Every structure is written in structure tokens, then in C-alpha cells.
């Protein structure tokens, strides 16, 4: 056969071989019929029954979660990465967790410390934990107060390069009168303790010998392959770049987990996550973008949003370099009135969320009497006119005393934020405000004053991002006068350089208020001031969007502790 006739034949054979290889063991399950699920309602739970013993030959229940970022470490001391930290809820344990309503529930302790049960001292400085007597590590070793003290000791050790010592650095003393009691005393009343403390514990019996031998836990093998766990699952393996596997902890002191194994598969981006969820290769994913929701729902994946305390907002700058217009409250109010955030939420975010009113929306600390600034460009223009900002040159940009009303707006490179910039630029332009837009990578955008960050150094008049502090606790140092960064204090938290005396006083007061209702009232007043002065303009409530395959059951996800009920999750066989 001539050479030129052989080639197509050879190529055809090669193609058949490829298809044959693919056919070997390929799952060709037909796509499921799409179902309609309200996007903003959590899935319907089935009651958590006491699990019966599974039949001996029952197929293993295996779930695959798709993560767009790979863990950096499994030792909670060495990671602040969200994708790693929340996984602690699967295999580690906290003293308490927050449920789907963000109410605290005891886990390692017998009860949540408060004034009535004596767990919280009257001055708010001492917290006493009473540990359960049935808690143990997966190797059977009891979990005691020694593990709590060890956790504190390792967090504070200068030999360990931990990500954060907060809030343990604020502790004045910590004692363990017995194996079931831990008494922590702060120098000053530390109100956000419930949301920030004892979110993990370290096994003293495993890690103290390592620390004593190496002088540090930085290089401990346990950081990447924990040998014991305190949660419903234990670590099994971690294939770098590919996946991590957890299996049920048969020695768990709580309700045994229903799912036998959980895989965390690491994919590089949102597109890969969506592809995995659509094809059934994954059972759960998170941070789903609004644009992908219809696609996933069409493939039968349930999508729902969870409040996690984050709200997207505009942060106005008040430093020396700020545009003089921003010092005028009327101008700031005009900006709020000229920007149709409602249409933005409807069009860009598919109506899945709404403009945030306060920094604490969806928490008890958000003032229910407040409403978001409406879209009223006529009123906005009137405010600008009254403030003296008039277009004297006829170029469409208002000016005053020779200064044009041109504001610099900056944010990160996320697509939705850049789309927001484009919309805002157009709408504010219709009110005679010119918005110049800039975007930065996150690692540059969030740099501090000391590192030349764009907001604290005055490069921006308005910065947009989403933040929370210690959700579900409302405390934040962000607007304290003492936190204004400068050459003498380059790492200050008050990037906007706001110093409002009443606001500052209220923030200081709430940090000492033990009584919930008093503290709530303080934050309601804080919200009033911030809204009226437009120190912070809410753009949207930044809910965490989760996608769950239809074969998962009993999935309840809390904003503060997404996997708080992981033991109850099940797979429909």
C-alpha cells in the first residue's frame, strides 16, 4: 500500500485506540434532570436519625468536595487560609461551634460560658471552660485541659512561626486547675472571645515530644499529615496538587459520621470547579459566581447562599491626600444617591443579594430601622449643587474653587468588581462626578501603609472590597482613631483615616460591654452614624454561595462554621 494511503489509516487506528482507552472504566451516567431550587434558601433537611448499623456489604459512601485552593498546612497554627481553616471542622475540634443560625453550641465544653453559669466573670476578663469527660483523640487519648494549655503555649512560642497569635497574645494568664477546667484571664475585657478563641486544639501527647526534640513545630510532619484527630473524621492521605482524603473516625466521641470518606480535590479555578460539579465528579463546591448558578442548577446541582458576615462596600478616604469633596457629607450622600446599587444587584448579581445597609447586615448588630440609601440622582444632584459643586466649564464634570470633582476608585481585579466600577463610572458621571478607576492584584491592594498600600497612602479616594472581622462577633478596630496608620504606626487598621469622636467612643465602649442588648444598642447607633455620614457605602451583601450535588442529604452550612454538622451529612444511595 502506498505511503500516502497508509497515513489516514494509521491516524484512524490511533483515534480508535484513544477512544477504546477512554471507554475503559469511564463513567457514562446520563445527566440528571435539572430541578428548581430557590437560590437564597438552604436545602430542605431531613431529620437527623440515629444511624443504624450499615449492612456488612453496603457500598461505601464517598463524597468529593471541590476546592479551588490547595491547603497550605493542616496545622491550624500555620494557616489562615479559609480553605484549610474550615477543614479543621472535619477532623479537629473547637470548644464550640456556630450553627446555621449562628448560635453557639458546645462541642468540647459542657456548656457555653456565660455570666449565669459562672463561665464568664462579671468584669468580662476571665473565661472558664468546663470540658466534657468523654472527649478523646482518635487514638483514644483523652482530650484534657493540658491540650488547651499546650495549644496556647505553641501559639505563643517565639520558636514557632505561626500565622497569627490573635487573640492569645491578649491573654494575661491561663491555668488548668484540673484536667477538665481551663481558666483564661485577659488584661482587659475581651468581648469577641467566643468567635475567636479555641477554634482548634493541638494534641499535646503527640506534638510536645516533637517540639522538645526539634525546638519548633515548624517542620513537624504532623503539619501535613496529622496522625490524630478530635473530629468526626481522621486524616488519611494528601497527594500534593491533587487531593486530600479523610475517613470516618471510628473512635469519635460524638455522633458517628454517616459518610465513610471525604475527598477534597484541588482544582485550579472556578471553571474547573463548575466542570467537576456539572459532570458529577464533585459533590460540593463553594464561592460559586453568580454567572455559573444557572448552569449548575441546570445540571441538577443545588445552589444556596449563606451569610458569613462579609459585605461588599465602598470605603471613603479621609486622609490629607483625599479629594476635598469627600470631606463634605453632602457630597458623600450624593455619591450614594447617584449610584443605583439596587439595579447593580439585580443585573450583575442576578438579584441573588441586595445592597448592604450596614457593615453588620444579617447579624443582630445591624440596626433594623435603617434603610439603604435609595437611588435618587435628582436629589444627589441637588445636594451637589447646594454644596457648591457646579459644572462651570461645561465639560460635564462639576467643580468648585477650581478643583474638579474627579475621584479615584480602586479595587482588586475580580471581574464583578471591575464590572461594578464600569457601572458606577457611568452613573456617577450622570451626576457630574467623574470616577477614575484602578484595579490591583489582591496582594498589592491590601498592603498596609508601611508597604505602600494604595488606600492608606492616599492613592485612592474610594476603595471597594468585602470584609468582616470576627464573624459572628461584630468587633472591629477598623474605625478607631488610634488605628490611623502613619510613619510612626505604619500597620494601623484605619486605612480610611476616619476620626469621628462619637464613633470612636462607641467602638471603644462596645469592646467592654458584656451585656448583649447594651452592645447591640451601641452597634445600632454606630450603624446610624456610619450610614448618615456615608463613611462606608454598602454595595452588596457578600454571601457565600455553595453548590451541593443532589445525592447529598442533611447538608446544613453555617456561615461561621460551614462544616459544623458534617457528621450528619449523608449520601443518597
Amino acid at each position, binding site marked *: 500500500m502506498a505511503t500516502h494511503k497508509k497515513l489516514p489509516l494509521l491516524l484512524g487506528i490511533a483515534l480508535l485506540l484513544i477512544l477504546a482507552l*477512554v471507554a475503559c472504566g*469511564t463513567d457514562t451516567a446520563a445527566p440528571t434532570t435539572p430541578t428548581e431550587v430557590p437560590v437564597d434558601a438552604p436545602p430542605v433537611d431531613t431529620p437527623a436519625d440515629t444511624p443504624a448499623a450499615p449492612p456488612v456489604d453496603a457500598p461505601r459512601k464517598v463524597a468529593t468536595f471541590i476546592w479551588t485552593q490547595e491547603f497550605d498546612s493542616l496545622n491550624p497554627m500555620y494557616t489562615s487560609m479559609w480553605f484549610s481553616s474550615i477543614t479543621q471542622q472535619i477532623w479537629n475540634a473547637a470548644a464550640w461551634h456556630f450553627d446555621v443560625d449562628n448560635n453557639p453550641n458546645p462541642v468540647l465544653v459542657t456548656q457555653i460560658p456565660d455570666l449565669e453559669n459562672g463561665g464568664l466573670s462579671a468584669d468580662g476578663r476571665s473565661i472558664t471552660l468546663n470540658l466534657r469527660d468523654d472527649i478523646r483523640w482518635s487514638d483514644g487519648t483523652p482530650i484534657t485541659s493540658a491540650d488547651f494549655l499546650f495549644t496556647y503555649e505553641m501559639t505563643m512560642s517565639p520558636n514557632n512561626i505561626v500565622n497569627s497569635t490573635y487573640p492569645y497574645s491578649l491573654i494575661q494568664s491561663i491555668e488548668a486547675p484540673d484536667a477538665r477546667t481551663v481558666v483564661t484571664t485577659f488584661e482587659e475585657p475581651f468581648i469577641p472571645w467566643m468567635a475567636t478563641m479555641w477554634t482548634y486544639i493541638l494534641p499535646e501527647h503527640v506534638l510536645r515530644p516533637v517540639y522538645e526534640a526539634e525546638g519548633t513545630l515548624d517542620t513537624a510532619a504532623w503539619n501535613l499529615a496529622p496522625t490524630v484527630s478530635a473530629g468526626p473524621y481522621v486524616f488519611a492521605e494528601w497527594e500534593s496538587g491533587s487531593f486530600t482524603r479523610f475517613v470516618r473516625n471510628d473512635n469519635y466521641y460524638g455522633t458517628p459520621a454517616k459518610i465513610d470518606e471525604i*475527598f477534597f480535590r484541588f482544582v485550579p479555578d472556578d471553571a474547573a470547579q463548575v466542570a467537576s460539579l456539572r459532570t458529577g465528579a464533585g459533590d460540593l463546591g463553594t464561592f460559586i459566581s453568580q454567572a455559573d448558578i444557572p448552569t449548575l442548577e441546570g445540571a441538577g446541582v443545588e445552589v444556596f447562599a449563606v451569610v458569613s458576615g462579609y459585605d461588599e462596600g465602598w470605603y471613603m478616604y479621609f486622609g490629607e491626600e483625599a479629594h476635598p469633596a469627600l470631606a463634605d457629607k453632602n457630597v458623600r450622600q450624593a455619591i450614594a444617591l447617584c449610584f443605583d446599587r439596587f439595579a447593580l444587584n439585580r443585573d450583575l448579581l442576578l438579584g441573588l443579594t441586595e445592597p448592604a445597609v450596614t457593615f453588620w447586615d444579617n447579624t443582630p448588630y445591624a440596626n433594623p430601622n435603617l434603610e439603604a440609601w435609595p437611588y435618587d440622582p435628582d436629589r444627589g444632584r441637588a445636594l451637589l449643587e447646594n454644596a457648591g459643586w457646579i459644572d462651570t466649564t461645561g465639560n460635564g464634570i462639576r467643580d468648585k474653587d477650581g478643583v474638579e470633582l474627579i475621584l479615584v476608585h480602586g479595587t482588586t481585579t475580580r471581574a464583578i468588581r471591575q464590572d461594578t466600577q464600569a457601572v458606577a463610572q457611568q452613573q456617577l458621571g450622570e451626576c457630574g462626578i467623574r470616577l477614575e478607576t484602578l484595579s490591583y492584584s489582591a496582594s498589592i491592594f491590601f498592603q498596609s501603609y508601611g508597604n505602600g498600600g494604595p488606600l492608606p497612602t492616599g492613592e485612592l479616594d474610594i476603595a471597594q472590597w468585602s470584609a468582616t472581622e470576627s464573624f459572628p462577633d461584630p468587633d472591629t478596630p477598623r474605625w478607631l482613631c488610634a488605628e490611623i496608620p502613619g510613619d510612626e504606626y505604619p500597620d494601623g487598621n484605619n486605612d480610611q483615616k476616619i476620626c469621628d469622636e462619637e464613633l470612636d467612643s462607641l467602638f471603644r465602649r462596645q469592646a467592654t460591654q458584656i451585656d448583649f442588648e447594651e452592645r447591640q444598642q451601641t452597634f445600632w447607633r454606630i450603624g446610624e452614624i456610619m450610614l448618615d455620614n456615608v463613611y462606608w457605602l454598602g454595595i452588596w451583601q457578600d454571601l457565600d454561595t455553595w453548590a451541593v450535588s443532589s445525592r447529598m442529604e442533611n447538608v446544613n452550612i453555617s456561615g461561621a462554621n460551614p462544616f459544623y454538622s458534617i457528621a450528619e451529612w449523608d449520601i443518597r444511595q
Partner: protein
Amino acid sequence: MNQVSLIPVKGVQMTRYIIRRLLQAIPLLLIVSLILFLLLYSIADPLTMMGGRNPTRPEDRARLARQLGLDKPIMMQYVYWLIGNDWEMIDVSGDGEPDTYGRRKGILRGDFGVSIVTRGKPALDIIWERVPNTLLLMIPAQIVILVFGLIVGIYSALRQYSWVDNSITTLSFVGFSMPIFLIALLSIYLFSVLFQRWGLPSLPPNGMFDPQVGKTTSQVLKHMILPIFAIAFIDVARYSRYIRSSMLEVMSQDYIRTAKAKGLRRVYIIAVHAMRNASLPIVTLIGLDLPFLLAGAVVTERIFAWPGMGRLFLDHLDRSDGAVVMGIVILLAIAVILSQILTDIAYALLDPRIRYD
């Protein structure tokens, strides 16, 4: 002149040439490392993103900067990276007084440093974990590129201006013009999503293997198909054009006509006479591509979630992990230098007229 005596002379010349090139590489690597280090640490701040979803707390930032040596002047950080800091006392306790010797040995003593992201894990360990995965993907891809490039290029040259040649030329231009991310995403959409929807045997969209099945040979092979296809689609087009052009030039030479006149078989003429002389440009191409065997296909690995060097580089660059990023680029710089030397050696072997003095 005695022909046998020429061989040792040429071997000595080659050895001297290699030694000279290796010595020249030392200052080159130092300059490359300095430039890259200054660029990386000038534009990126690894401490900013260590707070997770929130910026790093100020008190933690100050402590971490001290503990990680990031509070030192950038040139001092480079010196530590180069020669280590175990010769100097550093402040571990944070009281402002140096109290213990550092633990770093520096890259000149084989210590690539410790990852900031995967705290405490040596950067070299992190990198070497991924090298086999990258080679597993890139070597077969390169073989596919070479084989199909040769086949298509030679066939196209031998059938110049035929409808087959014109079709191949058109497809080559299309393939060469398409960005690789487009090919990768289209292949996922077609072979994974649509094929599954149509009930056809489908290919996995990402990963190196299905964790629930395990890292078996068939699993890895199946997961290699789409990434190799995406990588090869463009480079087959590139190689085939070079090979076609080179073959056409060689086939028009007198010695080819002489060989034909001598009655030699066509296959023999192509394989022995034409290919050898047409191979020098191909050697250049392969030599330029050799470092990429180690570097991996950054975009492809990212899209297909292949746990290789390319993806490792992007993940750690995103988080400004200087130790791992510098380790990768230094290894790549060494790979470039070595591949250029190998290419020069190959030239000399293929063409006896080439000499290195």
C-alpha cells in the same frame, strides 16, 4: 593526516568547550538570580495575604516579618538566600536582641529555603514532588509533538502543493494561531462535558487521576490525554511547518538528485540523506523546548489541574512564596543552560563541519 587522530582532538575541543560554557554559566546564574530576586521581593508582599480572607493583622505582620527575615533590607535578604544566615545571630524571641544563630544554609550549599506557604517544608522538597508529574506529562507530549510533527511535516513536504499539503498548511496555521487556553477549554467542553451529556465515553476534565479509583496506570493515562492533546495541538503545527520547510530545502539539493539517480529507494533517501541534513533546525527547536520539559505547561497544568511544576509556580507566585518561586526559576535557568550545551553537542555530532574552538 591520520583520520583516527582527529577524533581525540575533536573530543578534547568539545570537552574544553563544555567546561568553558559551564564556567560562563556561573556568573550568568548569579545575575539571573539577583534580577529575579529583586523583582519578586520588590513587587510582592507575602505577608499581606497571610491573613486568609482578611488582611494580616498588624501585630502578626511585624512578628512574621521578623521571624521570616522579611524585615531585613532586600540585598541582605538576597545574601541570606545565597549563603544562608547560620553564620549570624538573629532575634528569635522578639526582644530586639539577637539570641540564636540562623538555620539557613543558602542556595550555594543546596538549601533552597523554606516555603512560606507550606510553612516549614523545604522548597526543594516541594519542587521535587512535582517534577515527576511534569516530566510524566511533558515527555510524552514532546514525543507526540515530534512524531506527529515529523510525519505531518515530511508528508506535507513530499506532497507539496497537493490538496493534502494545502489542508495541512491551513490546519497548521489555525492550530498555531489559537491560544492554548482556548484549545484546552474547548477540549474539556467537548470531550468531558458534551460527550457525557450525549452518553458517549467521556474524558476526565481535570486532575491526574480519580482519587476514588487511585493512582493506577490506566487512570493516569486517561487523565493525560486531554492535556497532551492541548499541548501537542499547537506545537505539532509549529514543528510540522519547520520540518516541511527544511525538508523542501534539502530535497532540492544536488546530492538528493544524485541519490535518486543512483536508484536508491525513496524511503532510504528520505530517512538517511534528507532527514539528517534537515534535522539541524529541528535540533534547534528541540533544544529550545527542552527546558519546558521541566517548566511544565503553565496554562495547561492550570486548566487541567495537573499537579506539575507549572501549576506549582503559579500557586506559589500568587502567594509570593519567594523560596519556591526562586527555586523553580533557578532550576529552569540551569535547565536552559544545560539544554543549550546539549544542543551544541548535538550540532557537532550531526554536522562534522561544526567545530568549537
